[in-house]
């Protein structure tokens, strides 16, 4: 229990961010027309590709002689990149179709 309270006080800043971000996320989605639901989901999908940052940090911190960690880290970065690049490109392709309209 003490560890839990310690954790809270040590990470108070991050907890603030989490709470505020939850409300930002809710607010942003509140008023989106149905037409844009699919592109929006796809855009959000690309943004959680930010997990790639964690994958890069893993590789940067992995021991050079730990082959398993290196291999898994490599795959993690690869998959994260797929998520980011694929996600943004697909979203752009969807939105391209809306462009020509007035």
């Amino acid at each position: 229990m003490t560890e839990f309270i310690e954790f809270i006080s040590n990470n108070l800043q991050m907890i603030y961010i989490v709470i505020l971000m939850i409300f930002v996320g809710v607010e942003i989605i509140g008023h989106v027309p149905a037409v844009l639901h699919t592109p929006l989901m796809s855009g959000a999908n690309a943004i959680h590709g930010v997990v790639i940052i964690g994958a890069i940090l893993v590789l940067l911190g992995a021991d050079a002689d730990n082959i398993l960690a290196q291999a898994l880290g490599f795959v993690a970065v690869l998959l994260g990149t797929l998520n980011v690049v694929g996600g943004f490109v697909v979203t752009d392709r969807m939105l391209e179709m809306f462009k020509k309209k007035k």
Partner: protein
Amino acid sequence: MEYIFSLEFIYLIASITYILGLKMLGHPETARRGNLIAAGGMTLAIFGTIFLHQGEVLTQTYLLIGSAILIGTIVGWAIAKKVAMTKMPELVSLFNGMGGASAALIGLIEFNHYIGDTMSIVTILAGIIIGSVSFSGSMIAWAKLNGTLNKPLRLPKYNLLNNVIFIVLVAFAAYMTYIGTDSQLYLYILFFGALAYGILFVLPIGGADMPVVISLLNSFTGLAAALGGFLYGNMVMLTGGILVGSAGTILTFAMCDAMNRSLFNVIFGGFGDTDVSTEGSTSSVKGSIKKTTASDVAILMNYSQRIIFVPGYGLAVAQAQHAIHELEQLLVGKGIEVKYAIHPVAGRMPGHMNVLLAETNVDYDKLAEMEDVNPEFSNTDVVFVVGANDVVNPAAHNDPSSPIYGMPILDVENAKQIIVNKRSMKPGYAGIENELFFNQKTSMLFGDAKTVIQSLITEIKGM
């Protein structure tokens, strides 16, 4: 001044681009720019992480990271560019799974480094569970949308079984944390257990509910990314992840609302549970259907004043979006009023029909949403249903035993004439019969949507 070039500052900018990007994605005029802004922020954050890293890094590591990003970029770009517009929903699911897998792998590697640090272990194990479920669940959703897996598959007592597996997973993770284990075996048992749960979680859910599932798994992956941010104290992962987690959850509920079902119902409801096993005996609805021909429909349309098209997944499958637009222009040229009635969950994703029709430059004004168009059916001469089924099934109104009872539908039965184009009499994705097809006013025009519409165009042109 130094602070300007620090990683923290870059992460701050990236976080702002995510918020701005998502916000701009909510408006048609700014959506594309919003996506590009978020992509820019992401690029900045990735390069910042690599090049502003403090401490010794081997060249070998840089090569490893560089090649992974290069391969991922080329492959991701190629897939995203090549795949047909109709395949977009499953593609989103596929990429979502990649993110989930990445989060789970991070947890697998970092577990060893944090043994003894209870809260970090909790974060890591939660990340592994959520990431793995998101990965395997997304793969199943992808296979379902792809048509590889097209029937809901249910083990006996699957709800109970799934819940038990879930509780066991969580309890096992809690146990691992409690005893402070460093066992790799336990770690991988948890990992594979979570993968299995993801599969079992999505398998029983019907294809019609896949949009909701993908949206839910999307927010799961966001959560997994945020857990990674918590672990590293990395702000950009935290903001991006939580933002997607909360936005994705709201989107999920919006989709459930559109179907008038609760999330609980989607996941545990066993949609179409009663009918699926009795697929052979399709005649729960009595009566006979009327078949019609393209030339009859062409004449009917030619002498109508108001026509409403109801597009569904069949239109997407047949790639008939350009054909239907041509038909629309032809009819409008003859002074006929034409509209498209868009059900919020027509197709395989909310807005699927809008995206599809936008490809062909259909006027925004011609796309009518369900609430606006429903009162108009009663003074419409012809409703042309193209490859839609469950979203026009009157059972949603008048059959309390139907699994889709209560779902808002397009009230096409109020129109004077209903033409339904389908490939066959097979039930729709929900796996249930549609009494609309047996309605006195309904005529069936069987065939591939594109072929049928093209022959309609030829017939009308010849008049």
